[in-house]
């Protein structure tokens, strides 16, 4: 099986990162996600919160209101002070992916659209989290909420099913649906927003940051097609906006440099603004392998946890 060949020692090094185009051709999200996720460390991500667990984390001084059952009586016997024992909370967290399914996501210049790429990415992340026995949920939105699967340990199959029949439809807008969802995610968890963010950086950040207000950990994936990044068109043509249908005659050669500069500035601005509000931002190029993206992300998450 070629997908599994990525882990065999005999495989050529470059093939380790799976080509997203090949993955898109498989069509079965369950199989795809399993194939991708199985390449990672099994079940080793720590919950970001302290909770009831067997793994001791640290001692801290007793404050009125603490459960007296957590008081370490042996330490009190030695030091005559009240300490409370803290343990690492293990993964029974909520994990939801918020996927932008607006019309602009239905674009792909290399055989896979941004939406398909995001679909596979969602399936992979969900599958990864599900292996940890965490609760998985899913939300699709354009300028409103299109699909909503509440987080649950049993919703893995549902999420994959919903993902499978998603269709890009209307023009998108971040602010409306995300503000609505911010009120919805009451329980702390991990939220992943996947979008192409064709809006002003301020507007994007303004729309996304409310998701953090209830203590959610927020991860943002910015998905772009290589054509959107490089603008590799040659002949003069009329460019039609996928969402509005507006047409503009364009001579690409004369404006490529300015375009790329503008896109880079947009990405930089997003990076800058998200880091300011402590949101993890990752730019994903759909021509890059999926597990490479996951690897990049998860390793950075690992580092963050360790830092904490």
């Amino acid at each position: 099986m070629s997908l599994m060949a990525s882990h065999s020692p005999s495989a050529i090094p470059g093939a380790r990162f799976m080509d997203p185009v090949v993955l898109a051709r498989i069509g079965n999200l369950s199989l795809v996600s399993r194939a991708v996720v199985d390449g990672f460390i099994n079940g080793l991500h720590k919950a970001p919160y302290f909770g009831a667990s067997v793994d001791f984390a640290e001692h801290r001084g007793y404050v009125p209101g603490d459960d007296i059952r957590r008081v370490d009586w042996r330490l009190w016997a030695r030091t005559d002070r009240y300490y409370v024992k803290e343990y690492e909370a293990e993964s029974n967290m909520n994990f939801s992916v918020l996927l932008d399914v607006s019309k602009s996501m239905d674009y792909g210049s290399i055989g896979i659209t941004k939406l398909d790429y995001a679909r596979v990415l969602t399936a992979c992340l969900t599958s990864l989290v599900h292996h940890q026995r965490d609760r998985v949920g899913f939300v699709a939105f354009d300028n409103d909420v299109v699909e909503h699967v509440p987080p649950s340990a049993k919703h893995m199959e549902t999420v994959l099913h919903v993902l499978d029949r998603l269709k890009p439809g209307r023009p998108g807008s971040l602010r409306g649906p995300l503000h609505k969802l911010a009120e919805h995610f009451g329980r702390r968890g991990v939220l992943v927003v996947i979008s192409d963010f064709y809006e002003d950086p301020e507007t994007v950040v303004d729309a996304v940051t409310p998701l953090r207000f209830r203590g959610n950990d927020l991860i943002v994936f910015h998905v772009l097609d290589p054509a959107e990044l490089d603008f590799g068109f040659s002949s003069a043509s009329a460019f039609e906006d996928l969402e509005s249908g507006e047409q503009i005659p364009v001579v690409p050669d004369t404006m490529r440099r300015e375009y790329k500069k503008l896109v880079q500035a947009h990405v930089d601005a997003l990076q800058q603004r998200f880091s300011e509000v402590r949101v993890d931002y990752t730019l994903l190029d759909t021509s890059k392998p999926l597990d490479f993206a996951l690897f990049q992300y998860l390793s950075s998450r690992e580092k963050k946890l360790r830092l904490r």
Partner: protein
Amino acid sequence: MSFLAPLFFAALAALAIPVLIHLIQREKKQVVRFPSLMFIQRVPYKSVRRRRIHNWFLLIVRLTALALIVLAFSRPFFERDDLDLATGGAREVVVLLDQSYSLAMGDRWERARAAASDAIDGLGPDDRGSVVLFSSGAEIAMRSTAAGERERLRAAVAAARPTAGATRYAPALKVAGSILAESSLPRREVVLVSDFQRTGWRGEEGARLPEGTTVRPVALTSGADLANASVTAVSLARSTFSNQERVAVTAVVVNRSTRSLRGGRIALEIGGRPIQTEPLEVEANSSTSVTFDPVTLAGPFMRGTVRTGDDALPTDNVFHFVVSPAQPVRVLVIDRGGTGGGALYLMRALAIGDAPRFEAAVRQPDAVPDEDLRRASAVIVNDVAVPAALGRRLLRFVEAGGGLFVAAGSRATWAGDVDLLPAALEAPVDRTRGEAARVGALEFAHPVFEPFRTPRSGDFAAARIYGYRNVKPGMGTEVLARFDGGAPALVERRVGAGRVLLWASTLDLAWSDFPLKPVYLPFVHQAVRHLAAYAEPAPWLTVGQVLDASSGTAPAQAASTVVLTPSGRRVGIDEEGADVLELTEQGFYELRSRTGDTVTAVVASNVDTTESDLTPMDPKEIVVATAPAPGEGRQAGAAGQTLTPEAQERSQRLWWYLLCIGILLLGADTLISNRLSKT
């Protein structure tokens, strides 16, 4: 080049389709769908907004193919002239130059000559040219002259002047047709320089030009709305006052233009001197009459002229006439005389009448002076026995042109050796018993009975004839009337220059009540007028009519006459000169005896006033009417002048080539566009 189906040119609008395809379709094909124009819109504007043609070659191929196919469907063909033009060939050009008097108006004549000169200058080195001048007739001024002798053609045009004639196109076109028919050159052309008056063309005049002739009209029609009055006629009312004959002249003035004529004057001239002038006002498109005071007729050949003021066309403002004192018809009645004379009714009948007046003298058969016989125009022998000597004199009289009427009653006898009577006199027939005879079976075609032709204009059958002479018409006689039994009643015979009428009954009440019937008087007048060959002299003639030697003169004087034309030319019209003289000028023609140089007659000549009507016509009418009829083309084909069916088909085959080229181009277009779409 002409087209059989020119309506197909409307399909040329389809040429817009490939242009639109090139402008629109090509653009649509290159639409790139892009997630968002957010950044593109921020880039400073450098896109190409104006639509432009992407592939000029393809567009031209498509347009050419479509245009060729449309052209093919419109069925182009070369007319024969075009073929000749295309292949070259010498021309036979006939310049028809109108010189009717309407050309004298304004600058028309200068323009006409310039147009004719242009046509002559346009002759190629191998062409031949003719100049035909025409008005009411046509005259070949220069016939089929080589282009090298252009100067002669030009001189013929330069020498031409407007005449007094009216416009008639048919004679000129017939002359042109004859010149062209004799020509062996491949191309034929008629240049018709005229003011194209409606009055000059009646439509079907049978003037056809040979097959393939091009008629190029040069119209000189400006100034048609100028005021133009013309004197079209005068009427002369004779009267007698103090034993002097007078004549009152009434002139008719017609204004055929659209402007009314006010403040004009009209004058009567007698003998060249104006004697009366009257004011003249004529509304547009109407006529008026002006009556002058009576003028005493002083002598023979009094020349009168009615003249109005100047206007755009002065030629028709003058009207000439000649008036002479009325000449009586002298009649010699030979009667037995005495109380029993039967000439009472006859003399009474002859005493009545003004036009003409009869001057009758009664003589007995044995006392007829030579002088009476010489002066008389007609002799009536009223039921008398004519001795042989008188008979011979009467024979000479008749042979010299006199007229003889013989009434054959019971007393009439005729010398058998004088062959003058139209019929031999035989025994009388008595119809006093039983039904009286009636006169019937009249020859109404004869001048004597012509006035009685129409119904209710005289009933000869009302007269009862109780007795008549049986007559036996001889050879060369004509029975003009018969009695109801079939016997001849009136027989005519021409003898020499004169005529003899024989009435088989009496002209008094002895054998009939004919003198009591209303038809008697007109019958006698008509018979005498006929025998005397009386004709009222015409006060004027019209240009184009002919003048013969007997005009206005007694037959005996006609032998040698010289005519002095208004322009002063002397023309003889006797056996030494021409037989007749056509009137070509406006004015008075004088006829003089060649010997004594005395004026024997004066004839007034006027222009044809139909020419005054300047209403123009469409020259195309003439062009169409002179084109040969379909049948004629076939006949001309025998002489190789028309196209055979194969040649006609060949001249129309162009569409086939056009269609083929168009389809080939479309095929090439398909190949090119396929190749382009692959790249």
